């Protein structure tokens, strides 16, 4: 029982990353009809926003140590972050400690800008082009973004720890009246809460604002909305920015869970496409639902008890589920007719 509960927690946590990426991808698919293979790269850039802020905050002045030597026998350079010398060691250290949450503020403008720039500079010219061309150009862009990050940060993962306040785990065991422990890391709980908040915010925005209403109308029937004299293009550009920001924020907060590296976006790319399609093309709730569902199923499949029955099931479960769902429900869980079916 406790094992299953733990895996469901895990699934919710994994699922929240899947759901956030898929949500952004669906915004781009659903609103603009563009197959964006660079979406994983946006997630990666988000994570590197955390890394970058951490690097900026730890920019240091160097002094030579009188006693200690480095590996060549020269005097060791002792680094003191500027932040620490400006605000005092304690305040400075805690600012550095909170680099990842602070990176949210840093990432929002960066990601919105990247989103706008991508849409205006590149994607705009590909609305009328075949999906194949969109794949090629966005895949090319993904490689370029990835290589640029590699050029500046190297290929090795870069540790980006969570604030020390969130180190450790919370034990659900006593809370649920179980006699075994059910410990789950704080930061992963934070990640889940954060994702739920973002997902809620995106839905509220689309549901309750006039802007959102127009965008939804545009998703349903772009031409008619255009005929009504509404400049839908501008709003779509904005939605692209939002989608990039959602992917980016998913990445920012993901950095402490796994040290970011330049190809982490590619690891998520294929999976996020599967999530979107299983959820159903053009359906935002579908993307979120599929994200959480696949996350939970993947976690449950990696339980030892399950693996004992079918070895290796954890490696293929997502694809098995995708096949079953697409064969029983022609347009995924909640897909609309006629979107990307041609």
């Amino acid at each position, binding site marked *: 029982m406790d094992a299953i509960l733990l895996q469901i927690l895990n699934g919710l946590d994994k699922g929240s990353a899947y759901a956030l990426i898929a949500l952004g991808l669906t915004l781009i698919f659903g609103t603009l009809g563009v197959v964006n293979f660079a979406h994983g790269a946006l997630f990666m850039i988000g994570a590197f926003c955390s890394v970058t802020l951490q690097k900026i905050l730890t920019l240091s002045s160097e002094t030579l140590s009188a006693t200690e030597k480095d590996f060549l026998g020269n005097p060791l350079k002792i680094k003191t972050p500027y932040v620490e010398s400006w605000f005092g060691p304690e305040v400075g250290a805690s600012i550095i400690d909170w680099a990842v949450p602070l990176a949210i503020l840093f990432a929002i403008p960066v990601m919105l800008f990247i989103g706008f720039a991508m849409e205006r500079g590149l994607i705009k010219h590909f609305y009328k082009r075949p999906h194949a061309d969109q794949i090629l150009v966005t895949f090319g862009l993904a490689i370029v973004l990835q290589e640029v990050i590699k050029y500046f940060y190297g290929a090795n993962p870069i540790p980006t720890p969570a604030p020390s306040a969130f180190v450790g785990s919370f034990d659900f065991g006593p809370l649920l009246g179980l006699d075994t422990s059910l*410990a789950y890391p704080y930061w992963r709980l934070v990640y889940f809460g954060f994702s739920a908040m973002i997902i809620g915010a995106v839905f509220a925005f689309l549901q309750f604002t006039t802007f959102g209403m127009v965008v939804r109308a545009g998703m349903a029937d772009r031409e008619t909305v255009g005929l009504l004299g509404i400049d839908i293009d501008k709003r779509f550009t904005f939605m692209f920015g939002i989608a990039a920001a959602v992917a980016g924020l998913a990445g920012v907060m993901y950095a402490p869970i796994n040290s970011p590296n330049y190809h982490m976006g590619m690891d998520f790319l294929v999976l996020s496409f599967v999530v979107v399609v299983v959820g159903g093309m053009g359906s935002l709730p579908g993307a979120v639902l599929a994200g959480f569902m696949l996350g939970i199923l993947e976690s449950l499949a990696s339980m030892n008890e399950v693996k004992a029955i079918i070895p290796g099931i954890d490696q293929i479960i997502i694809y098995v589920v995708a096949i079953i769902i697409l064969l029983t429900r022609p347009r995924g869980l909640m897909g609309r007719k006629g979107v990307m079916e041609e």
Partner: protein
Amino acid sequence: MSFSNLTRRGLIKTSAVAGAGLALPTYLRADGHSGFTNAPTGDTVTLGFNVPQTGPYAEEGLDELRAQELAVQHLNGEGDGGMMNTFSSKALKGNGILGKKVAFVTGDTQTKSDAARASAKSMIEKDGAVMINGGSSSGVAVAVQGLCQEAGVIFMAGLTHSNDTTGKDRKANGFRHFFNGYMSAAALAPVLKNAYGSDRKAYHLTADYTWGWTQQESIAAATEAMGWETVNNVLTPLASTDFSSYIAPVLNSGADVLVLNHYGGNMVNSLTNAVQFDLLNKEVNGKKFEIVVPLYSELMAAGAGKNVEGVIGSMNWNWQLQDEGSKAFVKSFGEKYGRPPSNSAHTCYVQTLLYADAVEREGTFNPCGVVEALEDFEFDGLGNGPVLYRGDDHQCFKDVLVMKGKENPTNEYDTLEIVEVTPRAQVEYPHDHPMFAGGDLGKCNPGA
């Protein structure tokens, strides 16, 4: 449509060509008359450095490349000579190899067996390389070793830790300086016993591919021999990025040690996840919970950051060693690149020197001569103390380092500390040990 007709015609045509081919004598490369592939004719000799330059191990590949370039400089008599001055064999004179200036070509293995073989092939076919060196995964090493055996060039393996490289998949033209899973286990077991006691329950997470399997097998055998119990061994997909669902059940499994048979990005993530779950601060069975990472590398430790603190693992070599050879190497590497070399860099550097020395001693680039010179060759002064290149399986035997994540690193390179240098005698094994059985070196192949 009548395609069947056409394909049959195609078949006949093909067979006709094949027949024509049969009638022709097999022409070989022009330089093949000297009796072996890519015999150097001019005043240079070309070595092929095949390392991962893209993908997750790119950083490691880069470090190998640095070391290889340094080795070439030293061979050509540039720089301070590095380990050539401390090497017990004095055949190398700093005038290239056999008087020929050393040139090199580089390639990208992408850490994929296919790509690595393509890259090695281009070095052999296009650039005329007589030796291939480098790599950072056992899958790639085994694949390239097989290719070199077929093509008739020497393969000096880079970082490859699977027992299979010099076990099941050993080849006469291939040589491994790096240590292996069995040696890691033999070196770690006594240290683990001292540190954590002999009554422990271990939970293994193992990367689901050849290297992971052989390492897990070795570690389980060695720790069980000293009284540990293996509670569970869970195979994790290599493509995993999030290990939470494999780590979550560990605490309630009754185990009090977690062994992570992972390498590279897998290890960085699984260790980070394990620390997230706060395993190191838990107590199980009345003992403090511990994590073991059997194979360490500097780059992985850097990627995992603070999470390595207090975690024990093993290494082939480390820049903190204080013998003359290591000091000379760290000095010339550090002065050139401003950073200490990693243990994969050390292996690639040493392998290049060893190859050059073997050629020099034997007086020929012929792979069979090199094999003869390297088999059962004993040397010293290249770090690791006295070393034996065993002829039976082309595995090097030398001291193994047991490392521990440093509590308060003073700088970015100072992440690990040496706990113990396990002497060579303790990690030796017969070449037909069951974990290495089933292999056949075959005969050295000079190619053309």
